[in-house]
């Protein structure tokens, strides 16, 4: 049963499917690293820890980008009330991006990183070797080309169609995403300066423009599943993104504490990032309020669960766990410990992985021609996936937080000389790492359940 309003929305489907394939890869490499933390090398040196980590984080970023693109191709035409400008371009860019992504990951796995840098001509324009931005320069150029084509396609669609607040916020977020990525090409030799501009990509993505993308997707799904007036949802979207941008942009200061930057950054970073939980808290109130005030009972209960879940988990992971170590006097001790890892895991899952699964949950039944929603059995399995992944992530976060607190206690707080060394501290944290690995397996089971839900159909009546 075809329930798509605009047939060109169908181009979102390969983006979502490929995002899920990469997601599986990300989790498998995460589990591998989790084991490497406690038992060392287990694959005969084939996949060293640093490579596994690079693949784990790069797959995350790339699958989220595929998810955002899928979300944009799905919601922009529907909001603009017109067909996508060029579905062919969207499909062509999908294959280019997918091929470049796979080639890059294979490059990480099959040749030493230095060799990869050499054969991709990194010495001509050195951009490699920085956390999360490890991609060869040629891949980075490919990402820019794909982003330009993508923005052109959406921009033309919006220009010829209805202009809504959701589309404007989504486009602002996506344009910001592309613009801030350009700082990945600027790589000063001074390490402090390098880090300074590196945060322009990393921070202004996740605590700036990505929040706009999240807000727009959440608003779109809430309008669809609750039937609440667009004006009401859009007004609150504006309030939330205004708070997110003010706190998020000045909150960049929390990365500048220890970079030889002027001391006022410690005040700016501390105060404005202390405000960063507010927009996330506003999103929780907003999502629950709109669902409570719903005007219709949408058959897709799972999508509603994801929408509520992403608001809560983003608030906990990005808001609360971010605040935990954001004040300069606290960060002096916690900087770069497992507390950071705890925050990173729950924030990425809560805010970004879950928002992609929210729009997928809403859109996939329509994209696959199932109808407004999956059958009841499939939704129950999907909700199992939701809970197993979410509970798994809560425990991953709690165990990493425990590890982080102990790490600070043993390695950071004691006067020098009495403090344990980094590696000696790691040995003491082993129990937390084992528990984290178990929680990771629960997460994987949740992911399997989630993916299985796509294949569940209603039992035939006997």
């Amino acid at each position, binding site marked *: 049963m075809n329930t798509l309003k605009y047939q060109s929305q169908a181009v979102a489907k390969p983006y979502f499917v490929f995002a899920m394939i990469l997601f599986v890869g990300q989790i498998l490499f995460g589990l591998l690293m989790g084991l490497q933390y406690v038992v060392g090398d287990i694959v005969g040196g084939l996949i060293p820890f640093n490579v596994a980590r690079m693949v784990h984080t790069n797959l995350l970023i790339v699958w989220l980008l595929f998810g955002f693109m899928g979300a944009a191709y799905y919601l922009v035409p529907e909001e603009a009330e017109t067909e996508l400008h060029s579905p062919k371009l969207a499909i062509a860019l999908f294959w280019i991006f997918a091929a470049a992504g796979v080639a890059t990951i294979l490059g990480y796995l099959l040749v030493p990183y230095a060799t990869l840098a050499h054969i991709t001509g990194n010495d001509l324009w050195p951009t490699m070797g920085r956390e999360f931005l490890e991609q060869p320069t040629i891949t980075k150029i490919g990402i820019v080309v794909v982003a330009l084509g993508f923005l052109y396609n959406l921009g033309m669609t919006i220009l010829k169609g209805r202009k809504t607040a959701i589309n404007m916020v989504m486009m602002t977020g996506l344009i910001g995403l592309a613009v801030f990525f350009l700082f990945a090409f600027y790589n000063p030799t001074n390490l402090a300066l390098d880090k300074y501009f590196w945060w322009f990509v990393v921070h202004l993505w996740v605590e700036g423009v990505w929040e706009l993308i999240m807000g727009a997707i959440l608003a779109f799904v809430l309008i669809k599943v609750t039937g*609440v*007036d667009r004006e*009401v949802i859009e*007004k*609150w979207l*504006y*309030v939330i993104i*205004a*708070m997110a941008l003010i706190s998020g942009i000045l909150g960049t200061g929390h990365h500048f504490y220890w970079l030889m930057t*002027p*001391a*006022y950054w410690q*005040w*700016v970073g*501390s*105060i*404005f990032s*202390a*405000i960063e939980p*507010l927009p996330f808290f*506003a999103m929780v*109130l907003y999502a*629950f*309020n*709109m669902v*409570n*005030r719903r*005007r219709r009972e949408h058959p897709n209960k799972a999508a509603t669960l994801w929408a509520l879940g992403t608001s809560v988990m983003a608030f906990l992971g990005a808001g609360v766990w971010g605040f935990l170590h954001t004040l300069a006097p606290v960060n002096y001790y916690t900087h770069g410990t497992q507390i950071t890892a705890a925050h990173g895991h729950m924030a990425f899952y809560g805010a970004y992985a879950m928002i992609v699964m929210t729009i997928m949950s809403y859109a996939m039944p329509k994209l696959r021609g199932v109808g407004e929603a999956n059958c009841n059995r499939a939704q129950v399995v999907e909700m199992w996936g939701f809970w197993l992944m979410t509970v798994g992530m809560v425990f991953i976060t709690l165990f990493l937080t425990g590890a982080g607190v102990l790490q600070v206690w043993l390695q950071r707080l004691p006067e020098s000389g009495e403090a344990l060394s980094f590696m000696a501290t790691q040995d003491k944290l082993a129990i937390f790492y084992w528990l984290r690995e178990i929680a990771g397996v629960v997460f994987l089971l949740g992911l399997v359940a989630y993916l299985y839900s796509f294949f569940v159909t209603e039992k035939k009546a006997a």
Partner: protein
Amino acid sequence: MPDNLQQALGASTNEPTASSKSNLKKLPGDLAMWFFILAELTVFAIFFIGFAIAENLNLVMFAEGKAQLHKVAGLINTIALITSSYFVAISLHSMRVRNDRQAVFRLILALVFAAVYIVIKLWEYESLFEQGIDIETNTFFTLYFLITAFHFMHILLGMVILVYMAKNAYQGKYNDSSSESEFSGFESGACYWHMVDLLWIILFPLIYVI
């Protein structure tokens, strides 16, 4: 979440609102603006608390810093902002009695007093820079510049909002008695301006005087 908050969030499925019956109980302006104001007040509250703690840890430095500030300039600015807020308040009154022209005139007067603030504040910064004092001089001046500059940016935003209100009032856009929401836009802008004024009333004694 309490029902009244849910209603105020506007997601009610009922008729627009029943607020016209109980104007006294109704929050002036849009609830969204109040959320925004609360967020702003929170930022400043953290700044003020940070300032107070830093002052307690560096009593001599803060006393010396305050002695270098121009208290008369601060006082003139306090009076300018209170006067400006007064004109916004009586401008709202003009709106309520449907005298749009008078409302616009009063908003312009409010903007003039805001401009007085801008000029004096810039002169103050300039004279500090001439003495070789800037944001990196010491913790007192780091906080002085951060807090007052952040407040300064709010004055600028507030002035943009006042201009927008004056433009709409001039075009008679708040004159639609059938629409609650049109009038609440004016109230929202006025609330924002009062917040900016209120912040200075706390900021001036805290940083300049006590």
